[in-house]
């Protein structure tokens, strides 16, 4: 479970559990996990990153698969843990073993579980943002689109430059707020010009950034994690929306 989902939007976690269970998986969430260590790792704080990584490696020992509703957390485990322990053969082996078992949620559903269709009551037009790590490190691109296409009520309208970073970048957005703002402003323009009612993505960090910008702009576009639509978990308000707005995505 990614820390952002844990803290900010548990409903994404339950959506993920539901999707996995529907696909026939036995889901466990070890509570000895907290965070994957990405903030420390990307800030150059190797000592803390490694300490947290050891804890994660321990926490997930013995499971067949480790699935995260986030491309960037999955990528940290899959691609960066093995590099972190390059000097320690024992830990490298453990990290590589974990890496081989680690997947991003939606691509796990399609590529490993063979899910080709889901069902959801959502009706309306959506647009999908390709979060950077999911796209470029985990190869998540067609999988969510394929599952969205299986939903009769969902009309996917592609935005221009859906593969361009939204400007979140973890600590980047607070270290360089002006650049981040410029990037998310461009992104918000692309989102709005699709005319879609709902923005979807696979990473909560990006979604909070984009939803926060859309909100500040007074936009009616709502934002949800793609798992919420795929799992038909639409009762909670969309990101940054008041309770009354739960449901079908009309603002």
């Amino acid at each position: 479970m990614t820390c952002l989902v844990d803290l900010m939007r548990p409903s994404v976690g339950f959506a993920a559990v539901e999707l996995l269970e529907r696909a026939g998986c036995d889901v466990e969430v070890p509570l000895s996990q907290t965070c994957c260590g990405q903030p420390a790792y990307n800030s150059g704080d190797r000592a803390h990153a490694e300490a947290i990584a050891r804890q994660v490696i321990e926490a997930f020992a013995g499971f067949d698969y480790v699935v995260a509703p986030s491309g960037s957390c999955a990528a940290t485990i899959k691609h960066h843990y093995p590099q972190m322990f390059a000097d320690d053969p024992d830990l490298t082996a453990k990290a590589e073993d974990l890496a081989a078992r680690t997947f991003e949620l939606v691509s796990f559903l399609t590529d490993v579980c063979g899910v080709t269709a889901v069902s959801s009551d959502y009706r309306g037009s959506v647009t999908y943002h390709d979060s950077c790590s999911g796209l470029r490190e985990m190869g998540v691109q067609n999988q969510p689109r394929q599952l969205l296409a299986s939903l009769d009520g969902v009309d996917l309208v592609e935005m221009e430059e859906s593969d361009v970073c939204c400007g979140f970048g973890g600590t980047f957005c607070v270290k360089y707020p002006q650049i981040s703002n410029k990037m998310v402003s461009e992104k918000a323009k692309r989102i709005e010009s699709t005319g879609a009612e709902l923005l979807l993505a696979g990473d909560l960090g990006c979604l909070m950034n984009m939803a926060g910008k859309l909100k500040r702009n007074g936009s009616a576009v709502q934002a949800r994690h793609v798992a919420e639509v795929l799992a038909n978990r639409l009762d909670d308000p969309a990101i940054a929306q008041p309770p009354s707005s739960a449901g079908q995505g009309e603002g």
Partner: protein
Amino acid sequence: MESTAHAFKDNVTTALHDANLQQALGKVRQGFIVKRREAADRLPEFEALRDQARDIKNHTLAHLDFYLEAYEKKVTEQGGQVHWAATAEEARDKIVDICRAADAKVVTKGKSMIAEEIALNAHLEEAGLDVVETDLGEYIIQLRHEPPSHIIAPAVHVTKKQVEADFRQYHADLPPERHLDEPWELVNEARQVLRQRYFQADVGITGANFLVAETGSSIIVTNEGNGDLTQILPKVHIVITSIEKVVPNLDDAMAILRVLARSATGQEFSTYTTLSTGPKRAEDLDGPEAYHVILLDNGRSGMLGGDFADMLRCIRCGACINHCPVYHAVGGHAYGWVYPGPMGSVLTPNLIGVEEAGHLPNASTFCGRCESVCPMRIPLPKMMRHWREREFERHLSPKAVRWGLSLWAFFARRPRLYGWATGMAMSLMAAVGRKNGFFERLPLAGGWTDHRAFPTPQGRTFRAQWAARQRQGEEPS
């Protein structure tokens, strides 16, 4: 040039408020990216060619001493001279010496990033030489007294209107009523003005995209043909280049050239690829009488074999810059020194120090688009992270960041405490912010809430809810 990389944040503010710049950057965002994609798609072997290009450079760098000596030997055999320069200063001094010995007055120059790196123009001008940049983009920024803002499109930050104003100011002997509204009119005017200069020049200076050990050739790649006129008309041709540019054979150079133009501009091949070997032969009707190569190190030998060795594969195509959303936001000058964008964020701290350029490797979201298009498969985000690690080790990163990370790590390493503390915090935030669904302002989060709303957490954390669900499952009541 004087670095302003330490003032990156101020540079960013300036760039974001520069309307001309923002207008110009809009065009970078579109053209290059689509054209590169199309060129790559037209060549089924493109990805395999990237692998091959990477392997060729890795092989060369692992035996760089051998290939440099082999290259030097060949240049000498064909009547050219190689001058080694450990530092920028040595390189500049040598070039001034050669110009003086040739009794030069006018020096024409093809586009060279190494020349920018060693601030050659200022030095030549101080020595009393009349220096003329001949690449149209370089010519424009020379008139404007600006550094390049892009390694392959140096004047990409300048709008057509601005060029027109510059030409009217500096080409004062041309009729003021002339038309200069259209790009072709500006190009023609530059062509006419520079044509005279090529024929006046005593020395022509070019860079080199590759040096070939097999033959002692230097290779330049241009679209305008200015580099060729620069090197073929004056009596002396000086090549200013750096040690990592060498490749073993002509075949290796061509193999890498297959990915260079496609990655840079999306062209199948640049208009002119020119191999120059030594001075003109005795019976030749044209060509320079003397051929000098300045081989610059300037910190590169130290990068070899270390964390930043991969950067030495860079062929300066600019693809990482063209695809960088941070570059699209702020342009090249904000980076504060010669090399902008992702490649600059890795290279610049190597060349001028991380104390000066520490912001650059931090000003990235690690979106990875640069690495995904790099023809030489240079792991740019990984190397930016290396810089962040060094800054962290040397306590160069901001105190607030270090403090925040330590606090976070303290909780993250204590799952029960983490669960308890975050549970409290989220409940509190949810209680306060639930009505709106978001916060307009949050203490300590100004970087976020200055520009966007902060979503309210849903309330009970996933951990808390999951634990409760497990308990219910275990104790059926």
